[in-house]
């Protein structure tokens, strides 16, 4: 038996173990750390499955941004818990949760066991599309995302904006329009300021590079945008910049820019290429990069706003 399968199997076992540990962990912070480690190992699995694009997304979103989001949420939960004594869940609620979990697990298991053989797949169609109107892009993944399933890709960004609106809506009425609370204590540690000052310029450069290179190599709008978002979060945590007021014009424009430009170009496709979300073949690459640039902007604006949380009543910058 060669070494590689052994490593693959150990990786799989390790992931299952960490997943179990994350569920079993009593401490909220420990569970979040377990989840971040789980995401990073999952990125390795995607690398082993020869899917570096997915690995980049998993590492940036699944592990990085979600980790920050969960830690922040955990902190707020902790603050709530000390304020209100909570009653332990009753037997009926526990039973209902058990039944629901068993049902979901059973349905998932049944769905996998009853897959037709060979399984139904859109892959050939998507591969054909990657050679079609999105041609000229060296990275087939980006071609599929932007021309075969462009509508889905656009709607994913709409979902992000809806999530931001949802977070903002949690704030009190009086606070509407104001800035979210700062991400950290009033005086940040010198090491944090140093890290933000050193890392942010490099990170922004790498984020733009990952977006730009996504046309021809693993990378793309989501991965690059997530990196830019992370850099904004680091800068906010070091208190080098404060969260903006949520009624700031530039912030709202940045949030809607991605889906809006995508939709306008998609509608223009009706005229120039004969169908909704089709691009004229000779211009496909510049058009796709143009749309993606605005999507990077939207993602980089939306993710930090999710982490910053609802408006707090502060006047902001």
């Amino acid at each position, binding site marked *: 038996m060669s070494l590689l399968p052994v490593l693959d199997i150990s990786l799989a076992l390790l992931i299952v173990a960490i997943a179990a540990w994350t569920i079993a962990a009593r401490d909220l912070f420990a569970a979040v750390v377990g989840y971040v480690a789980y995401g990073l190992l999952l990125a390795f699995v995607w690398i082993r499955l020869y899917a570096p694009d997915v690995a980049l997304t998993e590492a940036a979103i699944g592990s990085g941004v979600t980790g920050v989001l969960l830690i922040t949420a955990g902190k707020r939960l902790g603050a709530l818990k000390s304020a209100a004594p909570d009653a332990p869940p009753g037997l009926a609620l526990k039973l209902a949760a058990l039944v629901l979990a068993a049902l979901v697990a059973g349905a998932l298991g049944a769905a996998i066991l009853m897959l037709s053989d060979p399984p139904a797949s859109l892959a050939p169609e998507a591969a054909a599309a990657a050679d079609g109107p999105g041609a000229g892009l060296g990275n087939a993944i980006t071609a599929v995302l932007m021309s075969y399933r462009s509508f889905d890709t656009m709607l994913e960004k709409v979902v992000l904006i809806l999530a931001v609106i949802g977070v903002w809506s949690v704030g009190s009425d009086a606070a509407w329009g104001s800035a979210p609370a700062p991400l950290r204590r009033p005086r940040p*540690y010198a*090491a*944090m300021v*140093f*890290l933000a000052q*050193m*890392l942010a310029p*490099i990170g922004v450069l790498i984020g733009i590079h990952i977006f730009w290179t996504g046309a021809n190599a693993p990378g793309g709008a989501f991965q690059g945008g997530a990196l830019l978002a992370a850099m904004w979060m680091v800068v906010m945590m070091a208190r080098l910049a404060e969260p903006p007021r949520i009624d700031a014009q530039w912030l709202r424009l940045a949030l809607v820019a991605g889906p809006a430009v995508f939709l306008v170009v998609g509608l223009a496709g009706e005229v120039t290429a004969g169908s909704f979300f089709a691009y004229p073949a000779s211009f496909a690459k510049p058009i796709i990069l143009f749309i993606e640039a605005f999507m990077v902007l939207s993602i980089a604006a939306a993710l930090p706003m999710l982490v910053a949380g609802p408006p707090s009543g502060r006047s902001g910058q």
Partner: protein
Amino acid sequence: MLLDLFSILAIGIGAFFFLAGTVGLLRFPDSLTRLHALTKADNLGLGLVALGLLPRAETPLSALKLIVIWALVLLSGASTAQLIGRALRRGRK
């Protein structure tokens, strides 16, 4: 041939530092000493692995990327170690 030997040696020593760091992380008595073990493994271990991979890089650009990755890990490792250490000291008081 000589370059291969260099790669094997550097990566081998790097792997040893990772092993030592992991043992330290598991065996040391408190958070500050564990942090010490961990950062040594990151900085030296990864540095040696990157050094060993340099002769195998296909282009000068990918060699440069390896060095940048090491530098970034140095930066984030050193800063987060400081932050965790500071938080630990504050928690003790």
